[in-house]
């Protein structure tokens, strides 16, 4: 079987065609993201975990900033012995990535020595460096919050003149824009400062467990390592708190399903003191915990709860009902921690030798030290900071659309970040010399064309991988972050062999069996279609969708490992989950009945 698999390969990049009519939109992506003929020699996979939908031109900055930072940390800062960074390409709006392995033994040896001097220092001083990281990250957030509002007056205000500022407002447009970009690129540097080292320490323990207990499930190892109090859980915890407070204050009957957040807030304001008291609690939760977006932070339209209260408000009635039914709302942290401790002890007891037990203690100890970063960074980076970033760009959208560059403020995201800068310079020039800006005659048709391209690309599926299949996948970054293994690729390759098979296999992420109607959700806008008891089928299950987990019966995803936050949340809610199926969103049709067996990692299409 493995020989037939080896002979097979994924389509070559050069065989992918840009969908007819979208060629100009494709060409607008920066040149360094376009596939070239040499790329046929290499293996690529579609990063549907982070980029499940076609990327608007501006949003590709996320890929660019992230891979620049990831690669720098791996290649130049910590010097990972066997891998450099990640290359990225885009076609039809889909981002493909490929690792750069190091295979020369002499080079690996040289990098190993470097790695020990650098990475070991980080491990040795983890707590201090992580505390420093939080300070840096908070300073970065404050800097972004302090950036002036994006606006340009007709005439320079008198006080600027009297203060002898000497620099006019048009200059500050460019200044703010460049600082906004600079902050975003910097945030991604911080993001990857610890990440691979953190995952590596976790994977070291994981690897040991798999050798000592060959049949242990991924999710069991994950449960031994996972903390319970990471910041990423806080937004959902805040909702539970607000639900309880609503009952305590006797205002819960105002927070009803079907009412809009605006209506609810208005009715609470009219209610007097108890209503105002609850709104005060809401304000406390919102800053900062509602700075969480409904996606993973990689798309400008993944708005935060603060920007769109409908997601948190949709979840509140469910939590209120649960609390009234006598359920304890707060997660039982102490109990969860005691369970984790017991789990670790019970497995420890099964080890064969005292030497194993001593090594086990060392590895789980290291994993626990690094994990607060692994679990905690997302809130600061992908959510809080990313929301500030996209909202700042949105301010430029407001300004440029007001000056006729395009009809809608959101259209700014259909320009690359270089093009936005050009438009800003155009406006600066126009403001300075009194001539009309050139942009209004240039951008509207281009924006229209690009919008149509995104809509077209969304209709087409894309190959999960491209190019020759590598013999082994020895890149810790690819294995850790994307869960891509040789075995997994073989499964992707053979998936098409049994088109009639009604079984889809993936990672067993959270045990239990559930049957229900599948809702194939291809983007975050479709979350509203989920009904009580539905089975969520998506490209990547997103942890910030946590509030909808109280509604669904099970979750299935194309991409993801058992340590994904989605898997953790599913386990907390006791929902079956199968992740990393590769093809679930393509094979399962919306509305079909499916059975999800989260203990075995199997989804069965029932019809």
């Amino acid at each position, binding site marked *: 079987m493995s020989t037939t698999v080896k002979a097979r390969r994924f389509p070559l990049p050069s065989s992918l065609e840009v969908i007819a009519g979208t060629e100009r939109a494709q060409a607008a992506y920066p040149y360094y993201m376009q596939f070239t003929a040499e790329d046929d020699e290499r293996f690529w996979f579609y990063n549907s975990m982070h980029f499940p939908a076609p990327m608007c031109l501006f949003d590709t900055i996320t890929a660019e900033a992230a891979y620049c930072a990831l690669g720098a940390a791996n290649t130049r800062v910590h010097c990972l012995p066997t891998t450099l960074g990640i290359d990225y390409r885009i076609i039809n709006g889909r981002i493909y990535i490929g690792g750069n392995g190091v295979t020369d033994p002499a080079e690996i040896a040289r990098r190993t020595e470097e790695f020990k001097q650098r*990475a070991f220092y980080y491990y040795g001083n983890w707590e201090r460096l992580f505390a420093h990281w939080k300070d840096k990250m908070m300073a970065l957030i404050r800097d972004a919050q302090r950036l002036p509002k994006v606006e340009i007056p007709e005439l320079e205000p008198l006080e600027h003149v009297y203060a002898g500022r000497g620099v006019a407002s048009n200059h500050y447009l460019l200044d703010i824009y460049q600082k906004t970009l600079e902050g975003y690129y910097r945030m991604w540097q911080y993001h990857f400062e610890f990440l691979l080292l953190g995952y590596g320490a976790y994977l070291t323990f994981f690897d040991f467990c798999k050798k000592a207990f060959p049949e242990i*499930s991924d999710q069991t190892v994950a449960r031994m390592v996972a903390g319970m109090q990471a910041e990423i859980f806080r937004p959902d915890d805040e909702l539970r708190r607000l639900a309880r407070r609503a009952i305590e204050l006797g205002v819960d009957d105002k927070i009803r399903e079907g009412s809009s957040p605006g209506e609810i807030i208005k009715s609470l304001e009219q209610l007097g003191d108890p209503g105002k008291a609850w709104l005060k609690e809401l304000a406390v939760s919102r800053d900062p915990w509602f700075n969480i977006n409904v996606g993973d932070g990689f798309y400008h339209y993944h708005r935060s709860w603060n920007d769109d209260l409908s997601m948190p408000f949709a979840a509140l009635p469910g939590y209120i009902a649960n609390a009234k039914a006598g359920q304890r709302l707060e997660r039982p942290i102490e109990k969860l921690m005691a369970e984790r401790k017991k789990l670790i002890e019970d*497995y420890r007891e099964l080890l064969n030798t005292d030497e194993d037990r001593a090594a086990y203690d060392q590895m789980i100890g290291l994993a626990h030290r690094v994990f607060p970063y692994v679990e905690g960074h997302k809130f600061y980076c992908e959510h809080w900071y990313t929301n500030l970033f996209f909202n700042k760009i949105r301010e430029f959208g407001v300004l440029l659309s007001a000056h006729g560059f395009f009809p809608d403020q959101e259209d700014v995201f259909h320009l690359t970040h270089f093009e936005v800068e050009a438009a800003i310079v155009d406006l600066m020039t126009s403001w300075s010399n009194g001539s009309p800006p050139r942009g209004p005659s240039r951008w509207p048709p281009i924006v229209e064309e690009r919008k149509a391209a995104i809509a077209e690309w969304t209709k087409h599926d894309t190959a999960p991988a491209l190019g020759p299949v590598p013999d082994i996948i020895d890149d810790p970054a690819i294995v850790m972050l994307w869960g891509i293994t040789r075995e997994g690729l073989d499964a992707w390759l053979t998936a098409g062999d049994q088109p009639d098979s009604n079984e889809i296999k993936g990672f067993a992420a959270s045990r239990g069996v559930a049957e229900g109607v599948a809702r194939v959700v291809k983007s975050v806008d479709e979350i509203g279609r989920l009904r009580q008891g539905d089975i969520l089928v998506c490209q990547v299950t997103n942890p910030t969708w946590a509030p909808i987990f109280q509604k669904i019966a099970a979750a299935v995803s194309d991409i993801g490992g058992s340590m994904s936050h989605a898997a953790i949340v599913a386990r907390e809610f006791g929902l079956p989950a199968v992740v990393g199926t590769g093809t679930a969103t393509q094979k399962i049709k919306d509305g079909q009945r499916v059975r999800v067996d989260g203990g075995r990692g199997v989804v069965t299409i029932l019809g």
Partner: protein
Amino acid sequence: MRSSQNLSSLADITLADRFAVGGKGGSLGELTRAGIAVPPGFVVRTGAFERFLAMLEIEKTIRSRVESLCQNQTDEDELDAITALSERVRARFENVALPQDLQSEILGAHAELCGDRLDWPLAVRSSATTEDAEDASFAGLQDTYLWVMGAEATLKYVRSCWASLYSVASIAYRRKHRMREDGVAMAVVVQQMVDARTAGVMFTRSPLTGDRSVITIEATWGLGSAVVSGEVTPDRFVIAKITGEISVRDISDKHVQHLPAPSGGVDEVETPDEMRRVPSVSDDELAALRDIGRKVERHYGRPQDIEWAIDRNGKILLLQSRPETVWSAKAVNPVARPAESPVSHVMNIFGGRR
């Protein structure tokens, strides 16, 4: 029931008695005393066997005859000689009258075990003992009789169990391993039969990888003999010992099942269509089996190979537990050793494939 030189109640036996009650009897007694549900019964001790064996020996002892086999003979002659001796000895076991006192003791214990229903079905099971008593390799060489009804049949099958110690296969096995005949004796377990809805085996580690963190369960409809004999491909489950998560759930086509025959013994019957592909154990039962497996393993301090049954009322009973031998016999090398600095373990991940 009062235990005597000839008989012991299972409730009075511990593993330390295994030289007098055999490995199976010792283990069942030990389980009973550990509070694990085992069908009630008694053991005809090896002392009774020894007395009867002595009665059968006229000129030369049977044991020395067995030991003198296979001294200087070719394979074929050897087998002929074993077969001839086996037939002679087994015939005597079946025909010579039991001592009167022993016979009445067995009948008394039988009556007590069956209560007001003298044809209560019983299992009559060989329980051999050897000097080293770690005799799992003996498994399957001696006979077991299921669904035995009535006192006469019970007496008959006790003799058959004794005689099975001198079956061709048993003798050949002992000669091959140069075992001393003095150390070999046969006790017989007489137990209430479980009218099994489902039965099977359970290993408290993985037979495939040796992983001690999982429990493997094989199960089928009816009596467990269908699994042990290999006539049915059983349902197979792998359960995490500690978390209870079920990672493998292979439901097979269980085309036949072993069920009690109306006149005693076991029939192989076709499984009704609607049951063939249905799991023969529920998730709750798997969880209960896991608990029992952990308890037994903890009691013995090592992985176990267990036979079990679930009766028509859903009660789980253990029929046997013995130490797992295959993986336990392998040399144990640590997966990893502690490092001077815990951090250096990360090189297993970052250092590349070696």
